[in-house]
């Protein structure tokens, strides 16, 4: 397959798919195990590599669980910056999906359009995190640095430009008869089956479900933001396309609200009175007793988030120390891929690229 290091074993009769078996594990790096030996802020580095197209979303996921386990509360401005980052990351991730998906259909032009527009978001990320793919931006207790001057202005320009481009994308795909010939009614996974398989994210919402953790179990500041859950009713490849396109528009809406809030509410982006071992940038120096005496808290943290690919989960057990006792992640893509046993058989070999393309595979996150 074209979406990274994985194989799909397909049993066929003629052109018809009878059974499939995904083969995963080529990209397994043991991130959960490595995390047990690492400082919390060092695990952020691994989070960027977990899903390399949605690094900030996974940083957010882990950091919320870690903060629960460590009993740290970030300032509200940091929460808004995190949500802003997560939503920009969602757009970037969906643009990446769009590019890969249309290329599987043989469309080269929108592939380049998608990559071009994703670059604008990467430029934004670069301006405040310094990185374009692996950001290492969030910290326990907040974010590493505040947004640079003029960022909100630039970001507004970018999302305005993107809103116009979304229209262009739809024109290139939805108004093409061939696109509908290739995508309509393919890879159907109805809601009860999707739920039974644990499929989440755009794949579930394309089947008519309204499940979106940002609404159902609001985390961070999502309960203060206005947006709609994008859904479709066809449960097929076109439906997933529509859901992701609408999600990008809703993300732009959230980004604009975040920018407005951030403009009006300057403030700190790191929690105050963090213990020095958590790497607080402005921790008071010179107080040796503070350095020597380490009061490690204990606790358990669980975060479930609507990541671009689906519902991701992080579970952090902290038994007192600078690194967690155990970290466990739920990868949405792994589960979405395994449901291929249900939504692939019955279609043709040539339908595999659009159907698997519509899943939005990120192997780094499956294998961890």
């Amino acid at each position, binding site marked *: 397959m074209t979406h990274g290091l994985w194989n799909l074993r397909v049993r066929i009769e003629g*052109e018809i798919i009878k059974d499939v078996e995904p083969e995963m594990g080529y990209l397994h790096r043991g991130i959960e195990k490595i995390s047990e030996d690492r400082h919390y802020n060092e695990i952020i580095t691994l989070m960027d590599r977990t899903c390399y197209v949605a690094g900030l979303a996974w940083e957010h996921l882990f950091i919320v669980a870690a903060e629960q386990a460590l009993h740290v509360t970030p300032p509200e401005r940091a929460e808004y910056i995190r949500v802003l980052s997560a939503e920009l990351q969602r757009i970037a991730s969906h643009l990446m999906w769009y590019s890969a998906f*249309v290329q*599987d259909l*043989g469309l*080269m032009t929108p592939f380049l359009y998608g990559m071009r527009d994703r670059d604008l978001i990467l430029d934004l990320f670069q301006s405040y995190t310094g990185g374009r793919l692996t950001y290492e931006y969030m910290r326990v207790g907040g974010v590493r640095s505040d947004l640079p001057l003029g960022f909100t202005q630039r970001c507004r320009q970018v999302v305005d430009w993107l809103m116009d481009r979304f229209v262009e994308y739809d024109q290139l795909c939805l108004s093409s008869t061939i696109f509908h010939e290739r995508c309509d009614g393919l890879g159907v996974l109805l809601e009860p089956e999707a739920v039974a398989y644990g499929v989440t994210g755009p794949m579930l919402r394309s089947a008519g479900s309204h499940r979106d953790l940002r609404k159902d179990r609001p985390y961070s500041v999502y309960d203060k933001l206005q947006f709609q859950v994008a859904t479709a009713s066809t449960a097929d490849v076109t439906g997933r396309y529509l859901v992701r396109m609408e999600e990008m528009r809703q993300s732009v809406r959230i980004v604009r609200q975040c920018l407005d809030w951030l403009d009006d509410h300057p403030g700190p982006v790191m929690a105050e009175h963090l213990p020095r071992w958590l790497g607080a940038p402005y921790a008071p120096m010179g107080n040796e007793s503070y350095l020597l005496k380490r009061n490690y808290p204990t606790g358990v943290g669980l975060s479930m988030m609507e990541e671009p690919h689906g519902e991701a989960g992080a579970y952090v057990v902290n038994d007192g120390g600078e690194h967690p006792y155990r970290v466990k992640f739920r990868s949405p893509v792994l589960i979405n891929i395994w449901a291929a046993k249900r939504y692939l058989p019955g279609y043709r070999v040539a*339908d595999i690229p659009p159907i698997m393309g519509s899943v939005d595979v990120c192997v780094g996150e499956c294998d961890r």
Partner: protein
Amino acid sequence: MSSVTLYSVAYSIAAILLGGLAHLFPAPVHGWLISGDVVTALATVIFAAILLAASMLNTILLIWYERKLLGRFMDRRGAMHVGYAGLLQNFADGLKLFRKDTVRPGQADPLGFWLSPTAYMVTSLVIFGLLPISTGWNGGSLPLTLLLALVIFSFAPLFIFLGAWASNNKYSLIGGMRSAAQMIAYEVPILLAVVAVVVLAGSFDLNTIVLEQRNYWFWAPLFLALIVFLTGMLAEMERIPFDLPEAEAELVEGWNTEYGGMLFAFFMLADYLRALVGSILVVLLFLGGWTLPSYIPAALTSFPLAGIVWFMVKTYLVFGLFVWVRASLPRIRTDQLLRLGWMRMVPLALLSVILAALVVLARCLPLIGCVPSMGG
């Protein structure tokens, strides 16, 4: 228009060359060298060489044109670095491929493996000898030029399938079978669309077909046939949306997966040669060849080689259309492709034949009125 033809140019060159050469030899050889047969033979060779050079040059230019145009459609610049605006990029690419080792897989059949690209290239080149670029600028005017050109054009699936089978690779074989099925399926509507043109022009000779378009270009009465022909040509060229034999998401690179180096370059060049032939055929059959409508000022149509210039302009515009399609359409599925070919294109082509017949009938109506008086 001057009466200079490509053949007369070749003949003059041959005569001058042989005339100069003959002075070096004693009388009997001297006389034989400047005899008509020898000059004709050399003129034919020079003619073929000019044609070969022109078609190859045009093909490479066509690749550059496609890269630049596609780049602009995709909001990028295309080749920029070798030569002015990347004009020499394809020469550089060709040189690189030429220097590469040609590897034949151990299990591949040698004869089929070597024969296929060569034959594919040669059959694509032969067609150029048949296509009139302007008055007098083709190899010869046979009564059935168009038919012969299409017959040679349809050799391609055979050689593609041969190459795919000989490479002994399952993806190549699947690609080759797809390719053969696709090309054969789209031969039918193409030929039917051509029949419509032939009915209207009353000849299989391309020169005559162009001359018959002096009053109106055939695209207007035969718009349906043009659409069918363009679609069919897209399928014959295996370009998006009909590039299934090379669907990289499913089959690695299709039927030419195992070919590298110069053999790959042969396939690539032959593909673009065929694209050029397709565009030229569209211009010849539907867009009036080298002629321009009478309302165009004479200054634009009477300069030296005006026919060729306008012909090339039209050809590149038609190819630009193909590039535009490539930039904006997704790929369709094999079964959809075949369904489209047999269930949509063939009936449309048949309809366009009927339309052509009706146009001919309408043209003849005044004559029918005259028949009794002629008899009387």
